[in-house]
């Protein structure tokens, strides 16, 4: 029952979609947190080779000016989804002359991903997508799974370290937090979940949409990102110290 995506198992599961989820589970962690004045995305970008240019091959990409997407899983699939999201955002602008809002971009991405779970001639996308947006009704955060299922979240995590990350995120008081604080927490959480024993080096990718970025999705400015990363490294060392 697990050979084709158009086949159900006797207990009502579509195995191909579940296997697609495995690709996500084994990938580098990505988290998103929505706070009072914006949304922050952070990714544990595992470095495959020392020859790669730092800062290239980003896992967080822009979709229109006010939307950012972070992917986990098969990165090629993730890029394809982002390409489609960009087209959907543009087509919304063409018809309505307005930027697309969070709910509708999530819906369009969700519908697109779900379509690939219906036919045996294609395979489901092996990536989950975290969508951060800022629209007229405030900051928004959505996550789309390979099945096409999506929900809106206050905080979400995907990839290897998602269990630990979710636990950490749940401890935070997101409703009152500002983006500045959120950036520090996001960096700390990514450093926290990274398993030095299992994985090689990683690069921390941080992005945000907030009032400070004037509602645009952008990479967190260097000074703020560096400060957050330094604090994150320091926090790791604190954890290592034994407490009586």
């Amino acid at each position: 029952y697990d050979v084709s995506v158009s086949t159900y198992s006797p207990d009502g599961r579509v195995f191909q979609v579940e296997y697609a989820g495995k690709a996500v589970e084994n990938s580098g962690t990505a988290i998103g947190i929505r706070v009072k004045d914006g949304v922050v995305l952070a990714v544990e970008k595992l470095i495959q080779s020392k020859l790669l240019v730092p800062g290239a091959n980003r896992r967080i990409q822009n979709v229109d000016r006010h939307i950012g997407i972070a992917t986990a899983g098969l990165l090629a699939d993730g890029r394809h989804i982002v390409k489609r999201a960009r087209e959907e955002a543009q087509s919304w602008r063409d018809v309505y002359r307005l930027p697309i809002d969070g709910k509708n971009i999530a819906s369009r991405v969700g519908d697109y991903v779900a379509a690939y779970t219906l036919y045996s001639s294609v395979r489901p996308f092996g990536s989950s997508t975290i969508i951060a947006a800022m629209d007229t009704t405030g900051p928004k955060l959505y996550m789309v799974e390979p099945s096409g299922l999506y929900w809106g979240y206050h905080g979400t995590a995907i990839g290897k370290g998602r269990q630990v990350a979710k636990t950490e995120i749940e401890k935070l008081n997101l409703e009152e937090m500002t983006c500045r604080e959120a950036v520090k927490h996001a960096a700390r959480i990514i450093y926290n979940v990274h398993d030095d024993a299992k994985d090689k080096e990683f690069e921390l990718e941080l992005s945000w949409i907030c009032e400070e970025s004037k509602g645009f999705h952008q990479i967190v400015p260097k000074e703020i990102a560096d400060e957050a990363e330094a604090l994150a490294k320091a926090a790791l060392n604190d954890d290592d110290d034994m407490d009586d």
Partner: protein
Amino acid sequence: MSGLKPGEVNLGTSIMAVEFAHGVIIGADSRTTTGSYIANRVTDKLTEVHDTIYCCRSGSAADTQAVADIVHYYLQMYSVQNGKPTVPLAASLFQELCYQNKDNLSAGIIVGGWDKENGGSVWNVPLGGSLHRQPFAIGGSGSTYIYGYCDATYRDGMNQEECIEFVKNSLALAMSRDGSSGGVIRMAIITEKGVERIFVPGDKLPVHWEG
């Protein structure tokens, strides 16, 4: 642009919309002609596309009714999925249809309405399918005769009563000069509270200099 086909019905028309503090006043004459025969002397050219968004139709009756119906459908879907649409959104839909089909349409439309974000707003979508937000807009064949009158009479910050008088007097002048406009004046006041219609019968029209 094809213009009207033989036998096609024309909304000769004088239409107008004015924005004020709490909403908009829209108005139109009531004459529909096929050539020189008045096919309908009591036409309603003010068409609802949403609760507080209306359009004034001029040009081909068939074309403008078809376009308004399509926009009405899109706004129904939009409001079910996304909540109340705004007036600029409705105007953008009109623009998209009028521009992409400009070779086959003869439609001059003025969109007027109220929404929470913008208050009252007036959007003119003339023949080519461009989009213009204006404090007040005039359209139709009769409008050519009242450009001077409107420019001389309009002031910023008029209240509801003054806007109603402005629309009434302007349309009456257009109707008396333009052979393709006439009949009665239909107006609508669109505010947060909704739509209130006003009817001015043909024998109660304001009279300008008649010699």
